[in-house]
């Protein structure tokens, strides 16, 4: 416990008050540690806006969500009507609703940008592994939050999207049917499903999400921010003050900096809200303006755009691709036995495990493996800090071909996303199969490819041009 401080004689009322508070709650300490004396590298670039913007969108979603819940009715007979009531009869209800629906898409845009920033500058590398892992958990929560929120307007696409995704769980061997029944609370998506999704969407998941966001920020401020050069600024400190030479206080420098980012973001966000709230059917799907009808299946059921890369991976897993997986597992096991420096016991274990995986691949339905691949597509982000063996963090000092590889990764992600929106076709399935293999290959082969090539010398100090 800190010692009890006394405000100096003749101090202002403000100082006296803060002394009183600080003796009971570390207000000034928290302010200093997280804002005024949190030293961030001075060479942040465009990509570094998206962390602050994620926080902004989170606040927008929570505040608009609070107001929506005041008028929304989580009841299969009233949900659709109550949303239209919000859109028509509640003063400014349309604005709050559009902010929330556009906010959902905006959240994924800023989070995808934020994650990509982490990938190219190696922000997940030691000592920031936990920052990254908390972030991945936030992404997972966000997907659950978005999926359950999408059911609430109770339109056709809400209903059938949920129906299709929940049915996927039924493909899990042994427990699947009971599990999907547990999720739905009924044999079809219905009132019970709507009520539990509402409960999860407005309280359970946001609670976890907020806890994770706090953990993400505390972990970040413990180790300090990375930067586009991937240099540890704490290695070069001012000998007198101990402040990193390339660090500047977060407040005021990055607060004013982020205000610029926020205003540009709000400019784009408002352009969508006021002029294209449906965003051509991508943010609000046209079919969702028809109330949920369990007897009429829409022509084409597509998840909202932010899920489609993973949805594409799910659809890509057909029997031929499962066979490809089996061959890859076999090749991997043989290589591990022949080339890996393992003991005989471990080699035996690898062979047995590979045989077991191949057996399971051939036993269970391809549909189940599709679900597994979709899940793994997200989960593979978690071990990234240990997959990357590159001697440098930032892409700036990696071999040039790495830039093309990351560009290809982004293009591949977009192609998968595009194919997930479209109805399936033969050529689309082939492309998404290639895309799925590339996506997983990128991560699983990273321990090897990240070490190859000519690395550039990393400077001692960050690259910075004064404004």
């Amino acid at each position, binding site marked *: 416990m800190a010692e009890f401080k006394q405000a100096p004689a003749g101090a202002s009322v403000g100082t006296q008050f803060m002394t009183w508070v600080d003796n009971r709650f570390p207000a000034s300490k928290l302010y200093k540690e997280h804002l005024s004396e949190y030293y961030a590298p001075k060479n942040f670039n465009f990509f570094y806006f998206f962390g602050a913007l994620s926080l902004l969108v989170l606040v927008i979603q929570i505040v608009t969500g609070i107001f929506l819940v005041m008028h929304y009715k989580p009841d299969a007979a009233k949900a659709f009507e109550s949303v239209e009531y919000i859109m028509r009869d509640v003063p400014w209800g*349309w604005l709050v609703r559009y902010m929330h629906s556009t906010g959902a898409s905006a959240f994924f845009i800023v989070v995808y940008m934020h994650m990509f920033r982490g990938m190219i500058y190696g922000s997940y590398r030691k000592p920031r592994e936990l920052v990254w892992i908390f972030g991945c958990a936030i992404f997972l929560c966000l997907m659950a939050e978005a999926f359950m929120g999408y059911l609430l307007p109770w339109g056709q696409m809400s209903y059938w999207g949920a129906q299709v995704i929940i049915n996927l769980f039924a493909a899990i061997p042994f427990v699947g049917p009971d599990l999907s029944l547990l999720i739905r609370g009924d044999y079809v998506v219905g009132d019970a499903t709507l009520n539990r999704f509402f409960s999860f969407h407005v309280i359970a998941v946001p609670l976890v999400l907020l806890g994770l966001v706090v953990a993400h920020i505390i972990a970040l401020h413990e180790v300090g921010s990375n930067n586009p050069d991937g240099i540890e600024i704490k290695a070069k400190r001012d000998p007198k003050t101990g402040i990193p030479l390339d660090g500047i206080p977060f407040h005021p420098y990055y607060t004013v900096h982020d205000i610029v980012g926020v205003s540009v973001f709000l400019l784009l966000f408002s352009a969508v809200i006021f002029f294209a709230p449906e965003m051509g059917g991508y943010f609000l799907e046209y079919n969702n303006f028809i109330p949920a009808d369990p007897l009429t299946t829409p022509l084409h059921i597509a998840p909202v755009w932010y899920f489609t890369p993973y949805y594409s991976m799910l659809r890509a897993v057909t029997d031929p691709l499962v066979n490809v997986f089996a061959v890859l597992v076999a090749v991997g096991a043989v290589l591990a036995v022949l080339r890996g420096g393992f003991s005989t016991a471990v080699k035996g274990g690898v062979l047995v495990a590979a045989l077991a995986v191949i057996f399971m691949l051939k036993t269970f339905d391809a549909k189940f493996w599709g679900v597994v691949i979709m899940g793994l597509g997200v989960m593979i982000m978690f071990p990234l800090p240990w997959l990357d063996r590159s001697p440098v963090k930032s892409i700036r000092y990696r071999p040039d071909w790495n830039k093309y590889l990351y560009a290809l990764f982004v293009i591949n992600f977009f192609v998968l996303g595009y194919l997930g929106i479209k109805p399936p076709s033969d050529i689309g399935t082939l492309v998404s199969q290639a895309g799925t293999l590339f996506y997983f290959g990128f991560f699983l082969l990273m321990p090897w490819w990240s070490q190859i090539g000519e690395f550039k010398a990393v400077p001692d100090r960050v690259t910075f041009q004064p404004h």
Partner: protein
Amino acid sequence: MKRLLLAFVLPLLTGLAVLTPAQGAAGGIAWDKFPTSRLTDMAALQNGAKLFANHCLNCHAASYMRYNRLRDIGLTEEQIANNLIFTGVKVGETMKVSMDPKDAKDWFGKVPPDLTLIARSRSDGAKGSGADYIYTYLRSYYRDETKPTGWNNMAFPNVGMPHVLWEMQGQQRAVFVDEKDPHNTAKTVHVFKGFEQVTPGTLSAADYNIAMADLTAFLQWMAEPNQSDRKRLGVWVLLFLAVFTVIAWRLNASFWKDIK
């Protein structure tokens, strides 16, 4: 129950999200462009409201739409109550119909859909806006004796609704020509070549198009009554944010000039 079960099991079996069409509006001709200038024309919207109340609202409800919202298109509560409400409900009520859904199903094969949001739900990224669809649909009825109602529609093949506005438009027939299939010379395809007026209506073709544009404008407005206000407000919001961005940018620059 059987169809319910089927609809539930099908996605499970296929693992793909595409199912047999269970809805009618699929297919049909390319859509004409709805003249969007009608949307901001109060007289056009009022005429559309009149057509809607007289011809559509008997079978189709607009159950999220309140009668008194029509004040937004320049009508007074007295005008609404005296000219547009035929069921004696109060002006604060929503536009419901008294037709029994069971009867409707017997008569038309399905319950006529609620029209409040029809203009939003019928949009199709590839074919056009919902208003384009409605504008085309309302003008594409033709005589087809093979159908139980004697009517068919080029924009909505095998539509359940007969041509309610036929007295205005008159009767037209669809002209089809058999042409060689460009992909398979051994086959011929039935190509739609346009409509041909059979009997005249009370309106000329040009006037009928204008009337349908007004009705479409009303449906488009009703799907989101504040859509024009939203855009007007949006201009101010964007102007404010543009100015604010400049201020934020200069503020940022004045702080960062210290950072060397």
